[in-house]
């Protein structure tokens, strides 16, 4: 029996959220007195895979089938199920990403497993139970869930777990082949279009997010958000009306009906802090609010606040951020 962690690659490296999942998986393995194996798919450098030893992974099963460079749920499920069978895995760990959640749900059916997504704690395993805490009600609460049955599948919330580092440890990399057929690729994407992030930071993976609202008046003022983000190494985001007005693309919209983020630092500029916006950002570790209205509801959810005109305040922040030594 072992713990199996699915890791996702990006530009040949392992995604930060997958390093978190690997760290989590190793800790679960330790708790259960077993070892953690990772399964990786598609374009990832073998050195990056071996380096998963630093997160406590002892073995990596790697399927290098180039058809897997694109996400195809059915094929991914087959590869992971094969790895799970080979390793006799009773606990499967994913990052709560679009891919992780989609694949986890299918595997729950295929392996007859119990699934918990959006998980924020290690399992409590006393008394034959397997209880994890997960975020519910859009960040307004947590629930403890007991996962019944033989196989447990966990998708861990992003940025909720530290990446553990045992420098120098390397994992053994083994080839895996799931003997995929054309039918497994029936729903393969015709086309994959990546956003032009210009060396910028991916919103879902970002440790710092700078976000703008309607208070910025128009898209022509977004250099304020972008320059501050650049100075801090942050990703940019926006409120819903901003993307509805096409000032910014939809994939930047955070909140109840947008993306949920939980960075270490969320800086909100000219956003009122409506409850639906907060739902997408309230698990950020530190929240900064810049708003000219002292009564803006966002201040109630903030750790630091500045009451002032964004057009005067933000340039000062950019200047101070640029002056920081890295």
């Amino acid at each position, binding site marked *: 029996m072992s713990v199996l962690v699915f890791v996702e690659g990006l530009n040949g490296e392992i995604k930060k959220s997958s390093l978190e999942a690997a760290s989590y998986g190793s800790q679960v393995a330790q708790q259960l007195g077993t070892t953690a194996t990772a399964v990786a798919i598609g374009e990832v450098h073998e050195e990056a895979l071996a380096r998963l030893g630093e997160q406590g992974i002892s073995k990596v099963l790697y399927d290098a089938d180039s058809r897997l460079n694109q996400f195809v749920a059915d094929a991914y499920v087959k590869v992971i199920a094969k790895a799970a069978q080979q390793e006799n895995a009773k606990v499967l760990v994913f990052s709560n990403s679009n891919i992780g959640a989609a694949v*986890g749900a299918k595997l729950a059916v295929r392996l007859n497993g119990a699934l918990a997504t959006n998980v924020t704690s290690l399992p409590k395993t006393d008394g034959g139970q397997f209880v994890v805490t997960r975020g519910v009600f859009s960040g307004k609460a*947590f629930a403890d869930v007991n996962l019944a049955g033989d196989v447990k599948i966990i998708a861990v919330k992003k940025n909720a777990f530290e990446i553990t580092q045992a420098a120098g440890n390397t994992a053994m990399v083994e080839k895996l082949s799931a003997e995929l057929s054309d039918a497994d690729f029936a729903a393969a994407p015709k086309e*994959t279009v990546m956003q032009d992030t210009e060396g910028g930071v991916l919103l879902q993976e970002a440790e710092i997010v700078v976000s703008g609202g309607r208070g910025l008046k128009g898209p022509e003022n977004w250099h304020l958000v972008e320059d501050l983000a650049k100075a801090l190494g942050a990703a940019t985001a926006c409120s819903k009306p901003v993307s509805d007005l096409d000032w910014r693309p939809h994939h930047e919209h955070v909140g109840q009906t947008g993306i949920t983020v939980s960075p270490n630092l969320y800086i909100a500029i000219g956003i009122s802090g409506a409850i639906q916006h907060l739902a997408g950002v309230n698990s950020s570790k530190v929240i900064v609010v810049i708003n000219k209205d002292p009564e803006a509801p966002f201040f109630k959810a903030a750790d630091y606040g500045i009451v002032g005109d964004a057009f005067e*305040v933000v340039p000062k922040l950019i200047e101070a951020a640029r002056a920081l030594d890295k």
Partner: protein
Amino acid sequence: MKILVCISNVPDTTSKINFTADNKEFDKNGVQYVINPWDEYALTRAIELKEAKGGTVTVLNVGEADAEPNIRKALAIGADDAIRVNAKPVDAFFVAQQIAAVAKEGNYDMILMGKESIDYNGSQVHGMVGELLGIPSVVPAFKLDMLDDSTARLEREIEGGKEVVEVKLPFVASAQQPMSEPRIPNMRGIMTARTKPLAVKEPVGAEAKAEYVGYSKPEKKGGVKMIDPENAGELITLLRNEAKVL
């Protein structure tokens, strides 16, 4: 074309979330329920497709009788008929099995859902239903069009980009913005919704796998520290030295 739209019945986005004194159950007192906001994108897109190409839109909820006002609302927005599977929806796997049973029996061409139910934030029912039925599940999609009578073209979000997928009917998809512009029911819709069929079905035998044993709320923030706008740069110093996030 026969489209099945699955809706969950959830606390309004502005609800205060409270639990019973023993923290074992969600406290429904004073909570208004709405159609899960993501499901409205699926519902309106289904209605648009029906208006363009003909067919029917059936709404499905797995839930108890208290969900009926919102099922009627979906009928008022433009669905043709509705099914309620009369059961307490105790976990996603249970719900998925009920949806799969209804979908199989009704031979739907397309099963549309929301990206996520905003109460339990599982993002999993669609994947489970696709797997149970052995058909593709395209999640989360923000664009859905028919290329011809048997093929749909969807765009789905991936971290950092999008994918264009073409799938044969039948399939499952989950919806997110900006798939459609949710509609508000008009007077005529509300009147006709009263007489549209709403069938109540008993659940199929199915197991639940996740047992909810308790709840808690996030720790309260320690209060906000205000910084003088004249001295705004001070914020950056505090973020580095005090909050240690830079």
